[in-house]
């Protein structure tokens, strides 16, 4: 099945470099994913306020996937979970199915349930797969301790997403370990990053991020790696906003899984959108040995 990139509003608005990094990484790994225009927002922001709009938006993207005969590939856990959930609801609810198709018909589209959305993580686990990745990544990030942040919608509701075990997920960890790094266990691994509350209740949003960052530090991780640009955004922002309690205290930096793979593939800081991002010493040292050195 051919693959097309599904752009995420959050990544293109705030983390535009992440999207271009994803394109570079898949090119380097030899996974053919095309760029197509015409998609709309996945519908995630509307789920709590206009349910039908959310279903319609996801339904349209799935209908486009169906029309092109290609699977949608996203780097965002929220887009992924949202579209999957809408797909699930449309398959059960006849009246919504009719509503969506009635509107899509006007532009010659139809949702019949054949469209597929995949997370890039899922795609890479399939092709090149863990052995293939290991062969391409030469395991040179060894010694690095990484905490994996799946993102809520990668895991839950598990009967809809069905990507990995919702209680002890491991697929993302396997991918990270293919780079030679070690995936550590940490207590807040399954918790929400708090990003959906930014702008609604900033204090709670920040508290949730802090809980997670504290847990990552306690697990002695060098780095947190996320499968969702929302989480990445939240951690990067919190890192700048949180004040350190005492001297010697620190906040573990974060990257997206795409950027981690990019570093392991020898891509430089500019192509990965890492200008101005401070990274742990081990990764710095490793990255500096590459073509383009990283800034401190």
């Amino acid at each position, binding site marked *: 099945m051919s693959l097309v990139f599904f*752009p995420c*509003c*959050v990544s*293109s*608005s*705030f983390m*535009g470099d992440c999207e271009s990094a994803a394109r570079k990484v898949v090119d380097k790994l030899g996974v053919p994913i095309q760029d197509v*225009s015409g*998609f*709309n*927002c996945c519908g*995630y*922001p*509307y*789920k*709590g*306020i*206009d*349910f039908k*709009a959310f279903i*319609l*938006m996801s339904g*349209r993207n799935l209908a486009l996937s169906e029309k092109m005969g290609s699977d949608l590939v996203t780097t965002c856990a929220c887009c992924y979970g949202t579209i999957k959930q809408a797909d699930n*609801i449309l398959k*059960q*609810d006849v*009246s*919504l199915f009719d509503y969506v198709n009635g*509107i899509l018909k*006007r*532009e010659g589209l139809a949702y019949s349930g054949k469209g597929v959305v995949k997370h890039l993580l899922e795609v890479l686990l399939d092709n090149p797969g863990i052995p293939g990745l290991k062969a391409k990544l030469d395991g040179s990030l060894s010694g690095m301790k990484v905490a994996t942040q799946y993102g*809520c*919608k990668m*895991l*839950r*509701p*598990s009967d809809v997403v069905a990507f990995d075990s*919702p209680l002890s997920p491991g697929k993302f960890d396997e991918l990270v370990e293919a780079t030679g790094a070690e995936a550590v266990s940490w207590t807040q691994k*399954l*918790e*929400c990053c*708090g*990003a*959906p*509350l*930014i*702008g*609604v*209740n*900033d204090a*709670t*949003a920040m*508290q*949730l991020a802090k*809980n997670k960052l504290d847990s990552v530090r306690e697990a002695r991780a060098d780095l947190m790696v996320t499968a969702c640009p*929302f989480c990445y*955004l939240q951690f990067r*922002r919190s890192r700048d906003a949180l004040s350190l309690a005492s001297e010697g205290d620190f906040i573990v930096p974060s990257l997206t899984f795409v950027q981690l793979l990019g570093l392991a593939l020898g891509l430089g800081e500019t192509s990965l959108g890492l200008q101005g991002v401070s990274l742990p010493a081990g990764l710095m040292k490793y990255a500096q040995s590459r073509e383009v050195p990283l800034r401190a």
Partner: protein
Amino acid sequence: MPKATMVYIALLIGLAGTAYKVSTWFRYSLGSKKFTASDRVVAAAKGILQTIFSQRFASILRSFFLDVILQAKLIRVSPLRWIAHILVFGGFTLLLLMHALGVYVNPLFFSNYYSTLNPFLFLRNFFGAMVVLGLAIQIYNRFIRRDPANPPSTAMDLYTILIFAIVIVSGIFLESVKITSVSAFRDMTEEYAAGEEDASLKALEAYWVENYGVVSPGLSGPFSPQMLAAGKAAHKASCAQCHAPAQWAFMDYGVSRLITPVASWFDGAAARAWLYWIHFLICLVGLAYLPFSKVFHLISAPICLMANSVMDRLGSDPANLATKQILELDSCTHCGACTRNCTMAFVHSVMPSQMILPSERIASLKVLASGKPLSLRDSLVIQEGYNQCTNCTQCTLVCPVGINLQDLWFSARETLAERDVPNLLVLSPISIYRGLRKDEIEVPAYAKPISNARRAIADEFGSFHWPGAAYSPQEEKMLDTAGINLRQSAGAACFSCMTCTNACPVVKAHQNPGAALDLLPHQIMQAVKLRLWDLIFGSKMLVECLGCYQCQEYCPMKVPTADLIFALRNVAVSRTYRNISQKALETL
């Protein structure tokens, strides 16, 4: 009235209009009202001076050549539109210089300028043909192709194309009538060939009928070679110095061949004068109308492109940013590139508010910027459209005049937030963008829309103590479609084990969650059973649920807890919104 006076009047209107428009750049503002007009003039002067004497001037030069002259941004959006723009802009500018202002401009470059001689005769037609071709592409793009992704065309789009088209068509028509006109020919011979004999004049006329397209009532071919030879001799003696072959004016000559059968109608000074006045006056109309039309982008867009090449919202003086936003509003050409690339534009097919389409919002932004009072209803309509924006940046990335649309929407939303119309969408993840730009908003203004929205919902359901008056059938249905018979499953299965509450990260983030959130997740489930709507819809938990699905995942009874909270929030928002709009309509 002498022609010169008319030109001066049109020029005066154009200049006064331009001055007025430029003054609005400093007087109007979206969002912050902190700066007075004079502050902003001073800040702009300072900013311009500082930029000219810094390295950033190189960026301005680069932007001038790439974005303004070569239109690099446009070619990325659409090569076809780029061709059309270059043809119209290039052709019209050259016609302006060489033809309209030719008397002043040409002597600077050429010693022997005659509009009837080459290369001028040919060039004038060539430039005209550029404009014709460009306009044809634009008309095709806008009115014939009817791409559903294009925004609707406005009256101004039509007027603009019409003015350009009339200028060019009347010009071509005037010239082609002149070519066929025998009276024009005879006027000329009286002046320049007065000494010739009648026979010679007749031969000359025959020569012009044969070669120059003149349509003479008395003379028609085929002519004898002798006569043409005599005509050629007279032509060489009296005309050739100033007249290149008419065929060089390929468009005028082509049209003159088409009108040959009716040429005698148009002959005579009156028809030529009419056409001349149409051509002349429509040019003056265009000149006077320029500052009020979208052609004003001729002045504003280059400034906008160059300013944006050196300005950014974090580094630049806020006074200059406010000024730039109004300048940007004047730079919009209503080309529709933003709407074609908008991730939300398709919602327009379900919700027919023009305000959803970014290209259509500019007009309402101008109203907002001018500070005119808006009715509650208008505010709601504008706000509703603006809310359908996920801030994905696509519009800004594709804008050929480099307008930072994303920042315009942000400023506009904040301006609307000041107007006290509850905006329920601040309770959704759409607010993330606003939250990330919190530092740019004053503290009380930041919190106001959030508390307003929450209060609007609480007020709406405040009287719902009595269980009977709960949901309308539509709302019942909405709850059901969110999951399958959510309310029933919540009622039937939940036994208050509190697993949901214990799993909830929002609950865990608070020292005293019961007080901070009003209802905890398991209490919401119980309140649904008891139909305590005022408690549910007034609770903070309802709007602060993250949607992380931990409650639902871990529920031993498989109650779709998170889905139920989302469905309740949907009912809360849609009912409150409906009643706000109803009240707005009643105020009319």
